Structures are given as structure tokens and as C-alpha cells.
């Protein structure tokens, strides 16, 4: 099973893939409306917002957690060298 290179989510169904395209390596939540993958900054902000919205974390703490998660994912490793 593929996992999203930008957030680590397992992708099983076609609907999980960006633009319903199973050849893509990233998921629907990491893509822009046109199907392209979000940028580093866009992903960081969207994950931060997600943490605040679903778990109520402080925004700055949430941003640090988002960076910590992204550090371990293939798409974003290079941003932390």
C-alpha cells in the first residue's frame, strides 16, 4: 500500500489519491484544487491549522509539531538540511 509522501497517510482507495489518480505519490489532502502538490509552506500551515482545529493546540506549538512531522517525510526532508 502506498503512503502519501507529504503527510504519511495510507492511500488505499482511488479517492485517497490526489485528483483520484493512483499514480500520484501524494494524497487528496496534500494537493491543491488543480491536483498539484502543496508547497512546503502551504502544507506546514494547513497541518498547523488542522492541529489547532481538531485538538485545540496553541498555534505556535502546533507549528512546531507540524515541522517535526514534516521533517520525517520524503517530500520535505530537504527543507531541514
Amino acid at each position, binding site marked *: 500500500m502506498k503512503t502519501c509522501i507529504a503527510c504519511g497517510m*495510507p492511500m488505499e482507495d482511488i479517492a485517497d489519491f490526489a485528483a483520484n489518480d493512483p499514480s500520484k505519490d501524494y494524497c487528496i489532502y496534500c494537493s491543491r484544487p488543480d491536483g498539484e502538490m502543496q508547497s512546503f509552506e502551504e502544507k506546514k500551515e494547513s497541518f498547523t491549522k488542522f*492541529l489547532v482545529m*481538531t*485538538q*485545540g493546540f496553541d498555534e505556535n506549538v502546533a507549528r*512546531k*509539531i507540524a515541522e*517535526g*512531522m514534516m521533517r520525517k517525510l520524503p517530500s520535505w526532508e530537504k527543507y531541514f538540511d
Partner: protein
Amino acid sequence: MKVNTRKIQKLNTRKKIIETAYKVFSEKGFSVPSSIIAKEAGVSHGSIFAHFPTINDLLVSLLSDFGDKMGARLHVLAKKTDSVENLLKEHLKVLKEYETFYSRLISEINILPDEAKNTFAIIQSTVAFHFASVIECEIEKGTVKKLPIHMLFNTWLGLVHYYLLNKDFFSESNESVIERYSSELLSTYLNLIKNERRVYE
């Protein structure tokens, strides 16, 4: 061939260390010395450091593995779920499976290094992701009260964690607190968050 055998051996040792650490941490807590993990795993103390230069590296790898396993289980279960009730039932099933380790983790999380804390937050965000997608639909349908998602999520975790953290008060022996109280926890929480009159019945 030789290289492959060595690589497999290396991976097996790593796996053995992580599995043993999972067991030892569950039983004795996260401040147990690495020498005990080495002894239990039947590997040399140096071997642990060859795989994990610091105890923090071991802890973070273990938590990531744990999070992947728990996340994958929940992901599969959540896909089949269209109601908050069924999702929370599945959440409790997964927690029951990992109850000893999970209870230890939530009781010691505040003394763990930041990286481990963040890994734990990421594990919870997988749960929160499935929770949010199901509960948003229920709020829209009018079956769940219109409350902030994070408060609905944190109230659920707060309730479950309270029982896990105070296991000694809620059970006498080694029985699973989740097993004993899951239906009461679930029905109470649902009564708190559900609208009295369902819109679509």
C-alpha cells in the same frame, strides 16, 4: 548474498530491540535503563547503541512504529464507519489492544523529551483526523451538538484517559479498564454530545 544476510540480521536485531523496549517500557516505564532492554532482548548493550545512538532515538523510533501500527488499524476501521458511535467503538478496540503501553505513555508523556511528545501528538492527530471527518458530518446532519471539534475530541480523550490513568481505582486486578467500562464511557459521551431530537430518524 553475505551483505543481504547481514542486512536481514541487522533489521531483525532492530526489530527485536523495539519489540523488547515496547514490552519493558509498558511494564516498567520509560526511565528504565537501556542495559535492561539489552538484557531482555538478549543482545549486547553496545548493540542497542549501534542501532539507536541515544535512548531518545529508540523511544522516538518505537513511538513512530507504534503510531504507524495504531494509525493503520484505525484507518482501515474508520473507512467502514459512518457514525461517531461506530468510530469511537473502533477507537476503544484499538486502545484495548495497546492498553498497557498506551496507559504508560499517557501517564509519562510530560516527562518525555519534546521529540517523543511531538510524535505522540502526531499519533493523536491520526485519531483526530478520523474523528473530525465523521463528527463534522454528524453536526451537519444535526445529530451532534454544534460544539467546537477540538472540545468534542478533547472531552472524549479526557474521559477515556481519566479511566486509564486511574486504573487502580476502577479495577482490582489486571483486567482491562477499556473492556470493563467501554459501553458506559461510550453511552455517556454520546448522551452528552448528541442532540436530543435527531433530525433524520
